[in-house]
């Protein structure tokens, strides 16, 4: 049996996306949307149809949607563009973000800090949250941008983005508010209240890889990112990936149409999964249990290392991921797990299981059964585990 439990990493292409893409990968679907002849105009129409569908699914305006190559590009554009605009608007060089962002935000923020921006990285509580008061208090006269992750990719916590951005705008309406909503869009209803910039990625909700978008609120003179032939209304040049964009739009539309049912089904399965996993001794959940992505379950296990669990599960046909040091190629475990206050030794034992409705009860039960045996067998090999007593060694 094969059970894919890494939907937060990427999702399989949905049938709606596949069917929407196919005509643009075959026959006369190759036209360059900037040209003047029939097949080019067809491509241009398809592009704008896709933009309209995306706008409809998100309840925003079509002219607020800018297609990109994905989440990383959109995050890069949002941060670099906002800081460029901040400087033009009167020496605003301050950027606020959190310690639990995706690297596509954190690495860019650090890069900007090396080039003269002032960076505030807000700490989070044990569930991975920042409060509206905390973020507003960090806003200064020279703050250009606040960038917060909508829903955390490692621990599933959803932030009250609307409340936080309202508090920021109440303090200074000129501060731009960006959210990396890569894990949220297509999975939960996303509020654009107070949002100036929003990142999302196609392959997280059944669309193709290499596709994404940046939402830019109408009226913001936001700078271009890719300079060239003037595509995407002069802000993001590059011949449009019509097949990819059509796939993204179809997947998002399907996700929006089925969201309520899909969320309920997925959350029920996730709760079944969580209950089963928490029956394993010396294991606890990470992230917010209430305000949480429906398909997201994340844990830490005492006395067993995360990569070992992931490899052990893979042998049994279960695909999962871990924020252990070993999966990052450094000696440090995930920055998110350290930021929520886990000690290094605990953070090394992390596991993330992200499912969707297609996982089914059978898939969930299979994961629980295999995970239980993998953890037990690997603990039996661990010097940190007392197999006779069935608990971690008192003191190592």
């Amino acid at each position: 049996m094969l059970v894919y439990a890494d939907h937060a990493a990427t999702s399989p292409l949905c049938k709606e996306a596949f069917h929407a893409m196919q005509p643009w990968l075959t026959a006369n679907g190759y036209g360059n949307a900037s040209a003047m002849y029939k097949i080019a105009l067809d491509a241009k129409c398809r592009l704008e149809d896709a933009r309209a569908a995306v706008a409809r699914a998100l309840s925003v305006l079509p002219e607020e949607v800018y297609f990109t190559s994905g989440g990383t590009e959109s995050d890069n554009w949002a941060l670099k563009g906002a800081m460029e605009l901040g400087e033009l608007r009167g020496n605003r060089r301050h950027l606020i973000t959190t310690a639990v962002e995706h690297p596509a935000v954190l690495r860019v923020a650090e890069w900007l800090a090396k080039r003269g921006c002032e960076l505030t990285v807000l700490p989070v509580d044990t569930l991975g949250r920042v409060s509206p008061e905390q973020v507003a208090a960090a806003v200064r006269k020279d703050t250009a941008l606040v960038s917060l992750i909508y829903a955390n990719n490692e621990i599933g916590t959803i932030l009250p983005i609307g409340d936080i951005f309202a508090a920021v705008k109440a303090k200074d309406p000129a501060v731009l508010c960006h959210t990396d909503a890569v894990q949220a869009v297509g999975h939960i209803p996303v509020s654009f209240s107070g949002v100036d910039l929003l990142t999302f990625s196609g392959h997280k909700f059944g669309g193709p890889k290499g596709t994404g978008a940046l939402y830019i609120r109408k009226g913001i003179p936001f700078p271009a990112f890719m300079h060239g032939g003037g595509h995407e209304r002069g802000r993001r040049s590059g011949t449009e990936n019509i097949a990819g964009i059509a796939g993204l739009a179809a997947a998002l539309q399907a996700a929006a149409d089925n969201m309520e049912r899909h969320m309920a089904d997925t959350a029920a399965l996730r709760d079944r999964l969580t209950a089963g996993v928490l029956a394993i001794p010396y294991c606890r959940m990470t992230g917010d249990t209430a305000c949480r992505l429906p398909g997201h379950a994340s844990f830490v296990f005492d006395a067993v290392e995360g990569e070992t669990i992931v490899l052990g599960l893979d042998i049994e046909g279960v695909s999962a991921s871990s924020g252990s040091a070993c999966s990052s190629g450094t000696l440090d475990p995930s920055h998110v797990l350290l930021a929520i206050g886990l000690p290094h030794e605990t953070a090394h034992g992390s596991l993330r299981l992200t499912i969707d409705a297609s996982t089914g009860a059978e898939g969930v039960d299979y994961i629980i059964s295999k995970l239980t045996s993998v953890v037990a067998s690997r603990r039996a090999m661990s010097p940190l585990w007392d197999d006779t007593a069935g608990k971690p060694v008192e003191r190592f």
Partner: protein
Amino acid sequence: MYTDKVMEHFSSPRNVGEVEDANAVGTVGNPKCGDIMKMTMRISDDVITDVKFKTFGCGAAVATSSIATELVKGKSIKDALAVTNTAVVEALEGLPPAKIHCSVLAEEAIKAAIADYYKRRGIDPTPIVGCDADCPACHSRHAPD
């Protein structure tokens, strides 16, 4: 990312556990960095007659410990001390660059166990074993902060 040999040793590790009448015990690594190896040996007449390991760590840490026990089992102390991290990597048909430290840990675990054997007999292991991976420099190397 791992060779078939690494995955074979990860899936079916050899010599797991603790030697009951061990007279040489070496523990290296640090829970903070996510790798700990504990190697227990029975040494008689300068020959490692039995060896077992327990490891907390990634797939490479498990595989390097497992193959290290195979490389030293039945060997003389002299031959066991000649097992380098490079030999461990070669026996596993390669390790990703980020995992080379696991092979170093395996070499250190062997040395730490043998050093313990000498210490128990009141013999200073340093001239024989060299670094026993139990000095402040070693510990700081394994602790990232």
